[in-house]
């Protein structure tokens, strides 16, 4: 008799932990799901922005493109930065298939028929913003069709292959 009582007591104790644990797991799941929902950013290429049109306007987006050097304009008075990016593939495999990031960026900038997108950003001009850099931008496409960036991330591929012929004997 006493033994069964002890067992009951033990399983009640386990129950307590199970419920407590489940509550915490549920809270963590809720945190993840709601935060994902609130902060998801669609990753698009320049081409996709055009093909989706109004559907993606005023939504949180992340886009990637090749910086066209001649288009960079910076006003140090207002810190308004404007430049144009050209379409590059969003998929890494595709980039590799086309000869690597450096080549894809170069081709994207040189190709006159490539789709381009104007970007506006307010803030210091990033150190890496230059011709044929890869720009990864966070922001929204406004009704004016211009991309209003909140955040700029830039990447320049190593170009040792290009530097070599100049100095090799």
């Amino acid at each position, binding site marked *: 008799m006493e033994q069964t009582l002890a067992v009951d007591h*033990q399983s009640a104790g386990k129950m307590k*932990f199970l419920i407590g644990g489940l509550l915490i797991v549920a809270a963590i799941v809720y945190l993840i799901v709601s*935060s994902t929902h609130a*902060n*998801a950013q669609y*990753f698009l290429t320049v081409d996709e922005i055009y093909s989706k049109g109004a559907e993606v306007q005023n939504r949180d987006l992340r886009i990637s493109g090749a910086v066209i050097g001649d288009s960079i304009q910076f006003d140090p008075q207002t*810190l308004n930065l404007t430049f144009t990016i050209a379409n590059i593939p969003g998929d890494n495999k595709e980039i590799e298939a086309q000869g690597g990031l450096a080549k894809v960026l170069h081709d994207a900038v040189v190709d006159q028929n490539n789709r381009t997108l104007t970007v506006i950003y307010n803030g210091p001009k990033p150190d890496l913003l230059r011709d044929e850099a890869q720009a*990864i931008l966070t922001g929204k496409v406004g009704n004016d069709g211009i991309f209003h960036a909140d955040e700029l*991330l830039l990447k320049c591929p190593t170009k040792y292959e290009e530097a070599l012929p100049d100095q090799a004997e």
Partner: protein
Amino acid sequence: MIADLGLGALAITLVVSIYGTVAAIYGGLKSKAEWIESARLAMLLTFPLISISALSLIYLLVNGHYEFEFVTRVTSNSMPTYLKVTALWGAQAGSLVFWSWLMSAFASAVTLRKWDRDREFLPWVIVVSLVTLMFFVSLILFFENPFARIWRMPDGQFIAALFQPAGGVLASLRDGQGLNPFLRHPGMTLHPPTLYLGFVAFVIPYAFAIAALITGRTDDRWIRITRRWTLIAWLFLSLGLIIGGRWAYDVLGWGGYWGWDPVEISAFMPWLTGTAFLHSVMIQEKRGLLKHWNMVLIILTYSLVIFGTFLTRSGVLSSVHAFAASAIGPLFFGFIVLTFVGSLYLLLRRWDDLKSEGTMTSLLSREALFLLNNLLFMGILVVCFWGVIFPLVSELVTNQKVTVGPPFYERATAPLFAGLLLLMGIAPLSAWRHSTAKTLGRAIWKPTILAALVGIGAPLALGIRSWAALLGFFLVALVAFVTLYEFWRGMMARRRTQGEALPVALANMIARNRRRYGGYIIHLGVVLMAIGIIGMEMFQKETQGTVPAGGSISFEGYKITYQSLSSFDTPDGRNVTRAVVNVEKNGKNVGELYPRRDFFFESQQPVTIPGVRSTWEDDLYIILVDWLPISSQGATFKVFVNPLVNWLWLGGFVFILGTLVAAWPDNEPELATARKRRRAAAPAEA
């Protein structure tokens, strides 16, 4: 010649590792001591071998052997010697050599310990260590070889290859491209080595865990042996993360220290599981519970270490949304999956041997609160992991790449971090085995009231109204008071029983229970860091402005006067544009700052170095954004005021100090903990 030596040593390492693994398995299965001894010597040999390899690579770097692709990529003539040495970890191939070097150092060190009582673990520790080493050495040899030379082909093309291709002529280059300017900072000489030391040191506890699973010696012996290894691993990992944050603050010029970048997160994830592990092994030692869980944690930590090594250096995630860019990506994934599944299989085989020696009964007992702490750490881990893999998942499911940024991590982890702080305040006051709301309430009401007065009252008086900040400061104050009270209580008890003066009591108390009080010092470090983080996250202010020479910007009590600008070349290949600004605080002159922009000719890349004035109240952080032609003398500045951020660095220092206290060798550590356990097993002991 030197290169051949380095390459040869690496190749021999691979052979020796394969031999050692086979010998250890054979010796372990057949219980043949001479085979195990032979395997042990093989493992001991890996360190001198990889040292030869790493030192030859450093020789090539320092002496400018630019015919090697790796050397060309990371060094140049204008770099000072110490940077040429640290260029070893400036790109992937060299990093892997460096990783293996550290790994072999730890593996060799572990062979030299006294194995008398733990002979049966030895062969399997050797197998795990050598298989890990073998994997990395094979990657270097076959995929990312730093000893590859650059060859000029007849058609004018340049290719990098280990051996002379048909018709190829060795390209002789006069200069290299130089190390990425962002990496030319004292922080970068320390950040990767400490992080890597943390990574590799975690292999050792994992190796012992696997040895325990294979041999079936599944008591807590493996935990006791590896306690110090785990703490050392954790020490370096923490140090690496802190130095990395400091480097970002000093060099990256965005006024922050942590950006929830996937690469940062990948270094943070093993720290999370490692921290959970450090806490939960205490429950196994004291109560014999959570044995399965500890195994899972150390296996996860190992997998995350390999994952982190891969991500931090491969550049895979720098493209933000794609994983397998590098040739070695699939290999890494293969290795992680293989070791993870293999470890889980071993764990399941021993599942029944790892039964708990008791049960948890009280929800507020120390062990239950430790379990909760583990749940929260795992929660943060899941948030991080989800954030990193979310783009892949969303693409698989919806065929649409969706990413999440820093706001996601901040929102999802903030409540979990707050929960951890709360636990840090409560757990030291709860008793092992049994604690009720009543006993806990009695212990905690005084510190709670004190914390409310200091943590909420003081900020309110200063005009702070954000409830999140008030909650944060309250929790921080609670942890501080509870922890300090624990020190005070221990000291008073010693004074009473031993008649010692308080400082002597403090020293003796810490010396007699280093892990406990080291842990509390770490908690105090976390408190200080949390103060800095709350200050930065909630009260950082920024402004920007363009001013003519002599003009000034007034902001948050500061008056920043732009005085002059100069531009000059330096012998190490930079053009430096440096502004001189005068700073006044509340009308009082406090000195000059020199925000500048360095332009590196070799890489055609500018680096913005902020001018920073640090005080305990706040940091004034000024970035030179742009300047007009020298004649008109105008310049644009971005100004950050970072409240309390210095407390973050102080906290980091205290944190490391506490870890050192906890990890400091005892004379006979294993006996000491065994004694403690016996004492703790007595129900009266809190």
